[in-house]
């Protein structure tokens, strides 16, 4: 099995890092993984996007035309990936920032107010973990616990104090995602 996930937002929203947490968790679970950013002459506020591929076999192309899952942090990302998501794919939408409506009926859209949840839980900068949690609920590529462990194992020493708050938020995002899916 092979799945591709795109995380896309403005620079500073943590899309690239959310993708890295998934990549670490999948690698530690024994999968083949690739993480590739779309990099350009961007500064803070520009496009920040990465593609993660999780596979049982060796990975050929690290880039895809139609991702299986897209986590969209803002409107431009929503517009692009609502269009490009494969049929039957899953779209995780940060409804705090996205007001573009879901128009496709051949995909599953999970709307989670990422900024709002993160702000309520102490820091809006944890928006990315809300959305990653919701994504894992919709597409369980790795166990939630594996993502938690990835945060513990791979955040540098100077950021270890952020691990526990982020895990709490990640779990909350997972619950939100599960509820949204069951609605």
């Amino acid at each position, binding site marked *: 099995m092979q799945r591709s996930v795109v995380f896309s937002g403005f620079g500073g929203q943590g899309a690239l890092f959310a993708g*890295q947490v998934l*990549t*670490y968790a999948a*690698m530690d679970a024994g999968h*083949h*993984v*690739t*993480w*590739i*950013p779309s*990099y*350009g*002459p961007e500064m803070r506020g520009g496009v920040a996007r990465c593609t993660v591929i999780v596979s049982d076999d060796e*990975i*050929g*192309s*690290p*880039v*895809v*035309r139609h991702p299986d899952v897209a986590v969209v942090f803002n409107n431009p990302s929503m517009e692009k990936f609502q269009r490009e998501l494969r049929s039957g794919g899953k779209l995780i939408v940060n409804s705090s920032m996205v007001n573009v409506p879901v128009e496709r009926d051949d995909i599953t859209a999970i709307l989670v107010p990422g900024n709002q949840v993160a702000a309520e839980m102490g820091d809006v900068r944890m928006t990315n973990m809300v959305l990653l949690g919701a994504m894992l609920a919709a597409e369980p590529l790795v166990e939630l616990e594996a993502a938690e462990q990835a945060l513990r194992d*791979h955040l540098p020493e100077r950021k270890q104090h952020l691990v526990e708050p982020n895990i709490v938020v990640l779990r909350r995002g997972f619950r939100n995602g599960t509820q949204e899916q069951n609605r």
Partner: protein
Amino acid sequence: MAKQLWKGNEALAEAAVRAGLVAYFGYPITPQTELLEYLSGRMVRLGRAFLQAESELAAINMVYGAACTGVRTMTSSSSPGISLMQEGLSYMAASEVPVVLVDIMRGGPGLGNIQPSQADYFQVTKTSGHGDFRPLVLAPATVQEAVDLVYEAFDLAEQYRTIVIVVADGNIGQMMEPAEMPPMREINGDRPHWALVGADGRDHRIITSLELGAERLEALNLRLQRKIARVKREQVRWKEDKTDDAEILVVAFGTMGRISTTAAEMAWEKGIRAGVFRPISLFPFPAARLEELSQRVKRILVVEMNAGQMLEDVKLAVGKDYPVEFYGRMGGIVPLPDDVLEAVERVHTEL
């Protein structure tokens, strides 16, 4: 040692450290900068030499100086920076000092842009500087392969006293993949017999690229040509995928090699038998094996992120009468698997 997640540029840097890199000189340029940035901390903590030079020209000449003392040394850059280093490369080739160079290619010509490209193929394989010399050129397609090749590159550079270029597009520099690092090599202080280490108590040695006598300069050239012939015999590398029953052979290197592998899988699902031939050594080019395979398949499709540079070596390998098709994008555009598939399908309809 277990696999860890590495960004390509940083993995290349760490592998070089483990290969025994004693002195690094460089100048920042996207999409290669993380390599230099990583070494700026790592080398200094190990008590080794790291220097950010004032320009690429300065960096390559510092590398030349360090190489003359017989220590493991390298620099890295991206396309326009490599252009600036060509004079130094030519001097080093004539001086027969070992050196490793990493080129993380970006869109060109000119200052171009910072997106991935493979448009330095001619430059690294054929025109790395004036005069008759050919660096050994290795092109990884994954982060692990980048690690393994740069680690080995230092041995090869010393074995042949030559320039070894590890060339990858910006994708490989920027992407993250699990990789296992090779063991840390001891730096024991032994220097080769030709190295400049101080002539205390013996006659001095001379390393130079200047040779005013025509006969002596021709003798140097003949020696370089023998060396190139040896490299051609001993260092040909490639990888094949699904070539056994292929009717169409896609030839691609680096990132385009792995993207073509995915495209080939998609082609098989549609009943088109496509295989992939991925040269790993761009010089020496794996011409003999490609010629052999060309007899078994019906068509060859070359895919590159340039206007068709490796294409020329493919055509040389299979002869002018063989049907070779080409698909390429330029300017930093990375073809996706379905783009390559479309090219394969187009070739297939002509069979």
